[in-house]
């Protein structure tokens, strides 16, 4: 647990992302992004792309490989598909974040829960719309496995994996400094079928400080 020294009053950008909505925004090299869990236990599904070349994007496997560890926290370098650091986590009052669980989709909801859950709003639909609004060339192929900030997916030494109750709480946050110009795409997760949002999706706030 590392707390930030940055003052929210000095942020150059603040916006609340309502439950279930998407947000896309450029973070310049040297700027710091904070994602704030306003009401607690809210998964913020997050992707990053190089602003200059969106084929260079966040890589869950490369990030895991680089640190030989599963969970993300202060000090973790968020690695790109080209092997470059996109951002580095500089503060974290939640403790750990997931990058194995991916995003929910309407299609995977039918597999995970029931065929009649297909109608429910899901992160991949938000990612698709947010990505298109940033860059018209982007489509489903550009969406690799994401980060789930504030989400708890424990793995046991014998290889079991579960979606557990959140370890986040109201006011907890994670902060990261950009190592290159990146575009951040967030789906504020609308999932109602598991405890990743405490069964009640709520807003998150994003803040940006200049370098």
């Amino acid at each position, binding site marked *: 647990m590392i707390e930030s020294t940055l003052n929210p009053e000095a942020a150059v950008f603040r916006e609340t992302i309502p439950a279930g909505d998407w947000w896309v925004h450029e973070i310049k090299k040297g700027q710091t992004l904070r994602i704030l869990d306003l009401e607690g236990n809210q998964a913020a599904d997050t992707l990053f792309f190089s602003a200059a070349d969106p084929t260079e994007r966040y890589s869950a496997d490369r990030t895991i490989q680089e640190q030989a560890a599963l969970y993300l926290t202060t000090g973790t370098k968020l690695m790109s598909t080209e092997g470059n650091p996109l951002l580095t986590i500089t503060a974290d009052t939640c403790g750990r974040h997931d990058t194995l669980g991916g995003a929910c*989709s309407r*299609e*995977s*909801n039918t*597999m995970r829960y029931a065929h009649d859950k297909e109608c429910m709003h899901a992160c991949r639909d938000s990612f698709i719309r947010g990505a298109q609004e940033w860059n018209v060339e982007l489509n489903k192929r550009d969406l690799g496995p994401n980060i789930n900030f504030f989400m708890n997916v424990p793995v*046991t*030494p014998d290889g*079991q994996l579960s979606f557990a109750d959140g370890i986040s709480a109201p006011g907890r946050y994670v902060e990261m400094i950009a190592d290159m110009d990146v575009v951040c795409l967030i789906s504020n997760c609308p999932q109602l079928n598991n405890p990743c949002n405490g069964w009640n999706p709520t807003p998150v706030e994003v803040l940006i400080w200049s370098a």
Partner: protein
Amino acid sequence: MIPTPLHSRTLHGAGMWSAVISRGKRLRLTDISGGSNVGMLLYNALERSERYNMPDTLKGQHIFYLRAPYCLHSDMGRLLASITHDTVGWHDTVCGHSDAARVLAKYGENDYQTARNDWNRNGRDCFLIELAKWGLGKKDLVPNLNLFSKVVSDDGGQLTFISENSKPGDVIELRFEIDTLVILNTCQHPLDPDPVYHHRHVKLEVFAGDPPTENDPSLTVRPENLRAWENNETYHTLRF
């Protein structure tokens, strides 16, 4: 009676291969020397934006690794393949693949100019080369399977590569549940601490076979797998 394979070949160490294998057929891979790693990616052969999805495979089956009788899920709520036979018991899918910089840093210089075809290839280049032959590229490179390799996590998430997970003669067999583009290479696992670069050969065979019935062990092991298979059935009914 041992069935005759439709196709048989030896994959060279640090080599690569790709093919479309139709629904019902089996792909059997045999680790000839022990300690091999096969990096694998799978795509729906007809709709190549549909691809192997590590997160859905793991969370759909509540597992961190793969073994028989578990399934390999796509990002569209369907099954690409099932593990029908497996003498290994643990296959990694979270650690990705090596790239040129990692191979150079770990094993030192061993380039084509010096070593000719005994040079040190890397997983990323092998994947990108084979993907390009089917019209795919960097956008399509996602977390892969590392067949024959075992990586465990402690309670804090720290990872450890388990050496000698796969023994000489160990086998894994996949049954395809949809017509599938298979992309694979035999480069070493990225977290293998062995300082020696190995060219380990792997035997590859493809056998004829039929799609499963709904009491198949791969479909009954988890209700999620049965629902995914029902999505496959709908896809095949509408398409063919």
